[in-house]
């Protein structure tokens, strides 16, 4: 698939949160002995800046979509290579039987094309805490990676990143969305 390189700039603006003495205060009457400092806090939104270096990123397809730039077998629904998403059970990083042939087909392809690299993107559903889901997503991607390595795929062809629950494929909040989000996407690089 064509790698659609885009420059992603990260904008950061400054927020002045330090106290500035813009508010004066005095006590009324003969009451509270202690007088707290009522210095206001000055919000000054200074101009944001773009990080000049920018970041190169890639538009990543993955999922069910066809992988343009790869061979026609990737878009033939009867070919296991057309499946580029591996789904998982709740709180599990174990590859289900249904997906073993899919991973095997991609492994064969990677073996036959040793210059081809792939990113295994691990994901989880939205339930539970976010950083734990990052860890779970990584374990899912590692399960796929280790099956590929057992089948002879070189470490140098594989890259892993976990997005946890941060990049859902489905945006609903029930099991029908969650089961689509517990996944590893196989994202072919370059070409």
């Amino acid at each position, binding site marked *: 698939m064509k790698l659609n390189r885009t420059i992603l700039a990260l904008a*950061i603006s400054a927020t002045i949160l330090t106290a500035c003495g813009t508010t004066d205060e005095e006590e009324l009457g003969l009451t509270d002995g202690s007088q707290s400092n009522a210095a206001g*806090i000055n919000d000054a939104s200074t101009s944001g800046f773009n990080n000049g270096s920018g970041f190169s990123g890639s538009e990543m397809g993955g999922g069910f979509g066809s992988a343009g730039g790869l061979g026609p077998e990737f878009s033939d629904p009867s070919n296991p290579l057309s499946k580029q998403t591996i789904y998982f059970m709740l709180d599990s990083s174990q590859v289900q039987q249904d997906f073993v042939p899919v991973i095997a087909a991609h492994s064969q392809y990677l073996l036959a094309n040793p210059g081809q690299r792939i990113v295994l993107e691990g994901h989880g559903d939205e339930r539970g805490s976010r950083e734990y889901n990052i860890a779970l997503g990584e374990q899912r991607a590692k399960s796929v990676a280790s099956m590929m390595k057992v089948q002879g795929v070189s470490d140098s062809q594989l890259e892993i990143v976990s997005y946890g629950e941060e990049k859902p494929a489905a945006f609903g909040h029930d099991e029908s969305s969650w089961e689509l989000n517990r996944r590893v996407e196989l994202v072919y690089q370059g070409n």
Partner: protein
Amino acid sequence: MSFFRRMLLVGLIGFYAPVNHAEMSIEITEGIESAMPIAVVPFGFQGSTGMPVNIGSIVNSDLGRSGYFKTLDEQNMLSRPSTAEAVRFNEWQALGQNYLVIGQVTEQAGQYNIQFQVFDVYKGTQVLGYRMTSPASELRRTAHHISDIIFEKLTGNKGIFSGRIIYITSQSQGNKQRIHQLQVADVDGFNPQTIASSPEPLMSPAWSPDGRQVAYVSFERKTAAIYVQTLATGERQKVAEFPGINGAPAWSPDGQKLALTLSKDGNPDIYVLNLSTRSLTKLTQSYAIDTEPTWSPDGSHIVFTSDRGGKPQLYIMPSTGGQEKRLTFTGDYNAGASFSPDGKNLAMVHGNRGDYRIAVMDMATRTVNVLTEGRLDESPSFAPNGSLILYASRKGGVGYLSAVSIDGKMQQKLVFDSSEVREPAWSP
């Protein structure tokens, strides 16, 4: 931020009372019966233009949201005094009020002089009184400051209304693109400012103990990295970008170190990064997931999430390394812990039969009390006085921030229209 303009302010205890500000929504969904009755009379105003900010209304709303006070609806007041001479205490006694707040604002050459007094209704005496000056731009913050003064005097606890919250928003840009923003706002959600924004996810914002810096995770380079950003200048430093996970930053109470999660050696483990020397110490060595470290307020211990027992549960260990002990035994899932400022309580995400709720463990007795009733509650963070826990929740497809008192008796929510809001953290 055009989507913030569409936030709507609604509601107080049980009934809707739209307030004259169209920015966001605070809804108190449950109140405390034992809360102290207090009447905040709309502040009087003298000036050429209208009062730019309704100070009395902000104070009323702050005190009502604290859980400590039951405020009196304006339409039930028999009079609206703005000077001590005009107060008739028997009226307020008849209305069952313990305390009365009155005030007036006078505009003078673009500055606003604010004077307010708090009375004990039964003794008929002044509890406190202040006069202060503020420019128009500072009036909201001045109002929050007044709330803090009143709260501290009447409850003996530190006020929390002039603090800040940080949180992440995520908004669809159409065409499968999203924009993720790290924002800082007043604790009532007003004055949101974006401090970082990226098309890739931002996560896990954590305040430094002095409130000047924020650590967070960014995927802007398509891999995870941890940054520390100084709020005043917007400058930031990348402090971790190892292969694999770089996540869950947590400041040590002295601000010198970050505990974090790295998976560079295989499994996610807890590490401590010294921010000045950049030396890295590995704390956990398990073959399981270890993540979400949080420091005890005295810095002696770290609590973290681990699935070494099969399911995610909380464990505790000395922050210099040593024996790891399991803390949680109830529920299928306990994760994402956060200590109260006094170290006596530990908030967590508590999962049981598919519902994820906020629970609190009493560290002395180890009893766990479930505080919320959502299905997808997460990211608990204590207010600096320990009275409230801010967390992220979701209902009917809408993500919002919510706060609950640590006894679970008072609930409120902040609804942000048209964007996902998550991972709130209360400033120190």
